[in-house]
């Protein structure tokens, strides 16, 4: 099984070090790379650090912090992992979101010395918004607190309180005391914490199960190609299963049709499932990029107003402003019709109801009035329930759909 894991938490709590340790202990690092890092550490008069396997920008070494997200791949004892490191600085939240958006599960890293800090809170708020519910908590730097059990229990209580306030299911959550620097409870059991009887981090990750919920068919149209005089509609099955001879509808174009063929380069298919990049041929009708296909009996519904929860990474966004909204392959313009609540992305607290504008790093519940568009509620079909906001060709924010059809 392959699992996407993101490590989140405050700056200096040891995310990069922990990943470096995982890679090193799983023997995923080439000898040459180890030598290279040793040489580099000498040259820059630093102590050898596992984090240098990840922080490959010179600026990152000099500033001793992660600036950009990075994904590395390695094989654990059982699963195959893509593990993503994100920066723990508020300044680089954009990079954190980029890295976290692909994750199936998250590992929250909290320093036993410092406990919950600003980015611990913000990262967990944002993960919750992105729908990443499966979280493992590691209390790191246990070596710096003499592997003290009471210290761990105190941290655990403090973290649970925070996560409970964001509605995470902390009752089923694993809390693991580790030292990434020394390698305790990461890949190998710790000799220093005999009082801990739970799994190591790698064993916990190897036990992950990814639930597959049954969802209705949705196919996002990317383009129309003419192949040997036939109009082939290319795109990706976002959810469910598409079969030859299905009766379908494309929205917002409103085209009803029958699927005559499902084509890939290698030949024809009888069916295609979620994730498949395919081409289809229908018995007539003009569709376009951005259309969403569904079965006639469970069709996608076009909307012109939806409620979303979004986080802003630009200076500000004002009521009445028009931005570009991208969802699936659709790109439409949408007006900020209503800002219902401005939310603190660190604490989740409502800062203001019905404000005129929001600012950088604010989250908010917003009603967007758009050109006809298909969006789905994130809780139902997440693949088409998340969107990005674009202004002047820059991606400035992202969010999830809470209500796909708001009556104006």
């Amino acid at each position: 099984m392959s699992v996407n894991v993101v490590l989140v938490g405050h700056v200096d709590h040891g995310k990069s070090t922990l990943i470096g340790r995982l890679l090193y202990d799983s023997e995923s690092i080439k000898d040459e790379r180890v030598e290279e890092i040793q040489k580099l550490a000498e040259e820059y008069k630093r102590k050898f650090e596992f984090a240098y396997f990840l922080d490959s920008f010179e600026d990152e070494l000099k500033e001793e912090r992660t600036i950009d997200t990075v994904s590395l791949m390695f094989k654990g004892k059982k699963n195959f992992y893509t593990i993503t490191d994100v920066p723990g600085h508020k300044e680089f939240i954009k990079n954190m979101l980029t890295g976290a958006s692909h994750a199936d599960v998250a590992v929250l890293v909290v320093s036993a010395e410092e406990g919950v800090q600003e980015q611990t809170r913000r990262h967990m708020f944002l993960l919750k918004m992105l729908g990443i519910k499966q979280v493992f908590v590691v209390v790191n730097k246990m070596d710096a607190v003499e592997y003290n059990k009471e210290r761990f229990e105190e941290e655990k209580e403090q973290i649970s309180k925070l996560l409970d306030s964001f509605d995470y299911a902390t009752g089923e959550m694993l809390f693991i005391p580790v030292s990434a620097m020394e390698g305790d409870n990461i890949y190998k059991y710790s000799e220093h914490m005999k009082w801990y009887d739970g799994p190591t981090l790698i064993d916990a990750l190897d036990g992950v199960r990814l639930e597959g919920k049954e969802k209705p068919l949705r196919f996002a149209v990317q383009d129309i190609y003419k192949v040997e005089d036939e109009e082939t509609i290319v795109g990706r099955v976002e959810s469910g299963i598409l079969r030859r001879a299905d009766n379908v509808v494309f929205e917002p174009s409103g085209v009803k049709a029958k699927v005559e063929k499902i084509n890939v380069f290698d030949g024809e298919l009888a069916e295609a499932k979620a994730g498949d990049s395919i081409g289809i041929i229908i018995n007539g009708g003009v569709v376009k990029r951005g259309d969403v296909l569904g079965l006639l009996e469970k069709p996608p519904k076009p909307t012109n107003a939806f409620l979303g929860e979004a986080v802003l990474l630009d200076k500000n966004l004002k009521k009445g402003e028009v931005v570009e909204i991208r969802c699936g392959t659709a790109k439409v313009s949408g007006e900020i019709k209503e800002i219902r609540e401005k939310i603190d992305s660190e604490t989740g607290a409502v800062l203001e109801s019905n404000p005129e504008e929001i600012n950088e790093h604010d989250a908010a519940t917003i009603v967007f009035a758009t050109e006809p568009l298909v969006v789905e509620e994130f809780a139902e079909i997440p693949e088409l329930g998340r969107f990005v906001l674009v202004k002047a060709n820059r991606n400035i924010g992202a969010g999830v759909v809470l209500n796909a059809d708001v009556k104006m």
Partner: protein
Amino acid sequence: MGLKELENKSIYILREAYAEFENPAILWSMGKDSTTALWLCRKAFLGEIPFPVIHIDTGYKFKQMYEFRDRIAEEWGFDLVIAKNEEAMKAGMGPEKGKLECCTALKTEALMNYLDKHRFDALFLAIRRDEHGIRAKERVFSPRDEEFRWNYRDQPLEMWDQYQTQGRSEKGAVQNHTRVHPILHWRELDVWEYIKQEKDIPVNPMYFANDGKRYRSLGCEPCTSPIESTAKTIDEVVEELRTTKVAERSGRAQDKEKAFMMQKLRALGYM
């Protein structure tokens, strides 16, 4: 990720870029990665590759690479174009003048001049995250500014599969474009397993062992050296890679001349 998943994602990326940009092109170095990317283009566009295939010729490539290039271009029938920095070549640029200088003149500047002339707004490149720490930091859609530079400190927000598609600007210098990386998420082993599975992806024979050595990564003749290996077939290469502790680009001299060489090269627009 399984091979099917990797392929699906690459096809999705290729189609997104083709829909969003007006004038794309793909870079081909005749190596395993970019040849696999060409194969993925054929899959994404159901046969023909609908844009030019650019080879940046430094004049220092291996003879076998030129032979391979001309043979595949003819077999697959795509629009092969060759970009060179003739001026620098005439002036005698070579690796002995410094590897950073040489790569920058013969690769980066050759590409920059070619882009300027042909006004491509997107370039497909077959780099992979697991090749190098600096490449691991890349976005799938990665903008290059007016000076051709990679602003790695301020990369776009790229969530889920929503890429930032900034077009070419209308004014000023015209080197700005978007690099699109369709196989960024593949590992070296994935590429070889895919070549094994697909059967029809051509492989340069230099990748296979001859007298106990084979090339693991192909580049310019003076700066590329082979590794010790006995792998003579695709199957044997796959087996070798499953257990090796040697880095893929260990035979590529330009990465190693000094610390952060790759970052410096790439910030200037190197691939």
